[in-house]
């Protein structure tokens, strides 16, 4: 059965200029292969297509059971000039957790 990522994993959002960084960690290490298989860069880009206007790069850090997504052109110009309410994109960790796998 499909599950929301929010039940399987946790995430933190960070910003560097107009680049959004989303990390993703399974609560249970056993779920790491599932996340690696299902949560591809393409899937994240599609899921957040409203927000992500540039390339999405995925990094895997198996020793930490971590996935990381570096999303370019993702924050309407970046925190200093964006007119978005959440100009940092801090809430976007919970947007990736809406994905179902």
């Amino acid at each position, binding site marked *: 059965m499909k599950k929301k990522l929010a039940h399987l994993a946790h995430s933190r959002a960070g910003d560097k200029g107009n680049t959004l*960084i989303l990390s993703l960690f399974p609560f249970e290490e056993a779920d790491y292969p599932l996340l690696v298989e299902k949560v591809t860069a393409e899937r994240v880009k599609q899921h957040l297509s409203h927000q992500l206007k540039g390339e999405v790069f995925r990094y895997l850090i198996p020793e930490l059971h971590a996935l990381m997504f570096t999303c370019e052109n993702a924050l309407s110009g970046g925190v200093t000039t964006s007119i978005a*309410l959440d100009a940092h994109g801090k809430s976007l960790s919970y947007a990736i957790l809406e994905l179902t796998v």
Partner: protein
Amino acid sequence: MKEKIRIGCGAGFSGDRFEPALILTEQGDLDYLVLECLAERTIALAQKRKLQDPNSGYDIFLERRIESLLPLLVHHKTRLITNMGAANPIAGAEKIKSIAKKLGLKIRVAVVLGDDVIHQLTGEELSIEGNKFLHTYGTRVSANAYMGIEAILPALSSGADIILTGRVADPSLFLAPMVYEFGWSTEDWDLLGKGTVLGHLMECAGQLTGGYFADPVTKPVPDLHLLGHPLVEVSRDGSGLIQKISGTGGLISVQTAKEQLLYEVTHPRNYLTPDVVADFSTVRFEEKGENQLQVNGGTGKCKPESLKVSVGYQSGWMGEGEISYAGSHAVERAKWAGEIIQQRIGDQFEEFKIDLIGLNSMHGGDLAANTTPYEVRLRVAGKSPTKEIAQRIGEEVEALYTNGPAGGGGARKYLHEVLGVVSILMNRNQIQPALKLIDA
């Protein structure tokens, strides 16, 4: 020489809470307290204050933080390292001197200078973000290089009680005392990598102890209202034991540390600082006890040839207006109100945005589809080169009270000047760190 040093982080941004630094200093048996108070835009804002008043331009909370902290720092022989100097570290140091005099305390402040490079810029430099010449952006108000440990080390050698900097890389605030106390070579990339890992984990203070982490359903954090900030006991080999003061709230665990390790990191194997290119992928965490986390690993490669320079520029004005609707057809009425504002003034703005707070203001797109909130708040935001036009947004939203759909309440309007920040690279030879001592 010491085998271990204890470094606390009492603030992770300018507006951070005050109490955790006091608790850390009082009970942490700290050698060093770090207060990291400079975000990307903070210096540009501070530079604008300095232009208005040459005696200002340091962190707006410097006075309040130092007044309460200074007696504790002196009593516990804890040295303070902080970037609260912002755009005017000398004026900040003079302020600290006057506070020390008032409190009857004898201290030495070392001011780290050299980050301000605005007079070296020609406008022909290319921005990293847009690959565009700087002169194509708005009027420049600030340009500050991210300096590293080489700027801070002489201040530590000077015997100063307080080291006050402008822009330096955040992890360098922590790495400098490690290098100084352990006598590490500034070209031992492996040790600098390890120290940078610890500095990066610590620099956001409460984000390592459960702040920005906590979720009542999946990631509960005890006593979040009493959140304590972290301290790290660093060993000579570059490993560290992260902990917090007992009795404070929060949580230090592998989970909290992993989230912070990758925070704002664009490439986990190449984390660039002025001191080293650190590799975070080899870091290992081990819970040693309740709220005790051992950090091992991390490596590094040779430091970069260029330093990043943040350039602040004027980018016009932003106006905002908000008004709420509740009950039946709340979303329909709020949408209609937004369309009305768009029709009335939308064409006057280069950038214009209509959000329904409670429905689509944070993520937008399909994520909010098929949800119906009981109440919703219309937010209209727009940017304009002139203040007069920007403030029309708030005025028009307020006018919806009597000129818009039924039941609009709680209108608010906001106006602020926009300072943009872009980055360039500058050869590190062009940046000359300097030191000034001020004794009180």
